[in-house]
C-alpha cells in the first residue's frame, strides 16, 4: 500500500495505482479531469494533458519534486508522494491552456450537437476554460462521414483521445478497421478507404467518445438530452459478451436512445452489444428498473425527479447557509 496526499487529502491505495485513480477513490474536487483516459481501455491516457498535476514530493524515499507536471492518469503513486491538483496555480494555468488548445479548432457547435449536455469537453470548458477565445485563424474542418450504418463521425469535434480505436482493438470483434491517419493537426479518425465498421460491439465507440465526434445515427437530432428521461433498464441479451444492462433515454413513451450505464466519470459500467443499442427501441423490449442517477449539477437532471428527498435536503441546507450569511452581514 502507498500513502499519497492529493490537495491535502491523504489517501491510501494499493501500489501501482495511478494518481488519477487514487484521487477517484477519494472523490470530490481533488479528482483531475480526464478526456482521453478510460479505465476500461488498456493503453488509454496520457494524450490530452487535462489531468496534468504537480508532484511536489516524489516519495518518502526520494522527496524531490518532479521537474514537470505529470499526467495523473499515467503516473503511479509512490509512498509519501505529495500531489497538487486544484491547489496548484501552475496546474490550473496549464489546464486552462489545454482547454484552449482543445477548443481552438473545435466547431463550438454545441447548439446542434447531440452530445451537448453530456459532453466532457463542454464540462471541462465550463470548469477550466476561458470565456473568450484568442484564436483568430480559420478552423480546421472535415466532412461528416458515416462509419458503419449506425455511427456518424464528426471529425471536427474530435479531440483525438484514441479511445474509439482502443474499443475497436479491445472490445469490438472482428479486428480494427478504423484508426488514426495522417499526423499532427491533420491527424484524424478514419477508415481511410470508405469502409463500414462492422462489429457487434462497435456502438461502444459512441459511449466512450468524450465529445460529439461519434454519435448514434438512430438517435441523432432526436431530442436534447435534458428533455429525455434516463432510466436504468435491462434485458436478457443472448450475446455472450453483452451485459444487457443499459440506460434507455425516454421521451414520453418512446425510447429515443440506448446507451451503456455511465458512472460519475462518464465511463460505462459494462459494454453493450449493437442489438441492444440500436435495435431495441420499444419499451416492451426492456425491463425498466427505475430512474438513472444523474448528478444534480448536470443539465440532464433538469426535470429528472430522481431523489426528491435529496433535493429537499439541499434546499434546506442552502436556506440555512443563506440565513447564516445574512446574519454575518
Amino acid at each position, binding site marked *: 500500500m502507498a500513502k499519497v496526499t492529493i490537495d491535502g487529502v491523504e489517501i491510501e491505495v494499493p501500489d501501482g495505482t495511478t494518481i488519477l485513480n487514487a484521487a477517484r477513490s477519494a472523490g470530490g474536487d481533488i479528482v483531475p479531469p480526464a478526456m482521453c483516459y478510460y479505465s476500461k481501455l488498456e493503453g488509454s491516457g496520457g494524450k490530452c494533458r487535462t489531468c496534468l498535476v504537480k508532484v511536489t514530493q516524489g516519495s518518502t524515499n526520494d522527496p524531490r519534486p518532479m521537474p514537470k507536471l505529470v499526467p495523473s492518469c499515467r503516473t503511479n503513486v509512490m509512498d509519501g508522494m505529495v500531489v497538487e491538483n486544484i491547489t496548484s496555480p501552475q496546474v490550473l494555468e496549464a489546464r486552462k491552456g489545454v482547454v484552449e488548445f482543445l477548443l481552438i479548432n473545435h466547431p463550438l457547435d454545441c447548439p446542434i450537437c447531440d452530445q451537448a449536455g453530456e459532453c466532457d469537453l463542454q464540462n471541462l470548458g465550463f470548469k477550466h476554460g476561458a470565456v473568450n477565445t484568442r484564436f483568430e485563424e480559420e478552423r480546421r474542418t472535415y466532412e461528416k462521414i458515416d462509419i458503419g450504418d449506425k455511427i456518424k463521425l464528426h471529425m471536427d469535434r474530435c479531440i483525438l483521445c484514441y479511445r474509439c480505436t482502443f474499443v475497436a482493438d479491445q472490445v469490438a470483434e472482428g*479486428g480494427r*478497421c*478504423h*484508426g*488514426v*491517419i*495522417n*499526423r499532427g493537426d491533420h491527424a484524424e479518425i478514419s*477508415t*481511410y478507404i470508405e469502409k463500414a465498421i462492422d462489429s457487434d460491439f462497435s456502438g461502444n465507440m459512441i459511449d466512450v467518445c468524450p465529445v460529439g465526434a461519434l454519435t448514434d445515427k438512430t438517435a441523432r437530432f432526436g431530442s436534447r438530452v435534458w428533455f429525455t428521461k434516463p432510466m436504468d433498464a435491462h434485458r436478457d441479451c443472448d450475446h455472450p459478451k453483452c451485459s444487457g444492462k443499459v440506460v434507455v433515454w425516454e421521451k414520453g413513451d418512446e425510447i429515443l436512445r440506448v446507451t451503456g450505464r455511465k458512472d460519475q466519470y462518464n465511463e460505462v459500467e459494462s459494454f453493450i452489444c449493437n442489438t441492444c443499442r440500436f435495435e431495441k427501441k420499444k419499451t416492451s423490449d426492456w425491463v425498466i428498473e427505475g430512474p438513472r442517477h444523474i448528478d444534480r449539477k448536470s443539465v440532464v437532471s433538469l426535470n429528472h425527479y430522481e431523489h426528491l428527498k435529496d433535493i429537499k435536503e439541499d434546499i434546506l441546507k442552502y436556506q440555512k447557509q443563506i440565513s447564516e450569511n445574512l446574519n454575518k452581514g
Partner: protein
Amino acid sequence: MSEIAFSAEAMEVVKKIIKRYPEGRQKSALLPVLHVAQAEFDGWLSPEVMDYVASILEIKPIEVYEVASFYTMYNLQPVGKCLLEVCQTGPCMLNGADDLVAYLENKLNIKVGETTTDGMFTLKTVECLGSCGTAPMLQCGADYHENLTNEKADALIEKLRTDNKRSRYC
C-alpha cells in the same frame, strides 16, 4: 487491372527485410517494405498496394494506412515521374530556398504541390533534409542536389528530362 504483386526481385528484397526482425515481429518491416512497394508501383501507394503490403506482413490494412499517412515520404496520390522536393526550413531559407522554389515554379509553370501537364515533374516543398551547409538544395529520388543556383537547377531539370526515368528512393 492486373493483380498487384511484387516482382520476383522485389519479393526477394522484402523477404530479406522481414528476416531482420525476431519471429512474429514482421510488422517492423513495414516502413522499408512500403519504400519497396512505392518504388515498384509507380512512385505512390494506392489503397490496393497498401492492402497487398498488409497481406504480406500479415497485419490489418488500417495498420498500413495509419503508418503510410504518418510519414511524409510515402505518396498517397500519384506523383510526376520526378518528384522534386525542395527544402525550405530555416538555414535553407537563409540561403535562398524561397528563390529556388519561385524559380522552379516559374520554370516548370506549376505551383508547389502541382504536377506538370506532361506528368514529368511534381514540385514539393519539404522540411529540413539535413543539408543545411549546402543550401539551397532539393532531393529527387535518393539523390541530393546541393548548393543549387538557377543554372544548376536548369541543368538538373534538363538531365532529368533526358533521362526520363522515374525518381525513386530505392
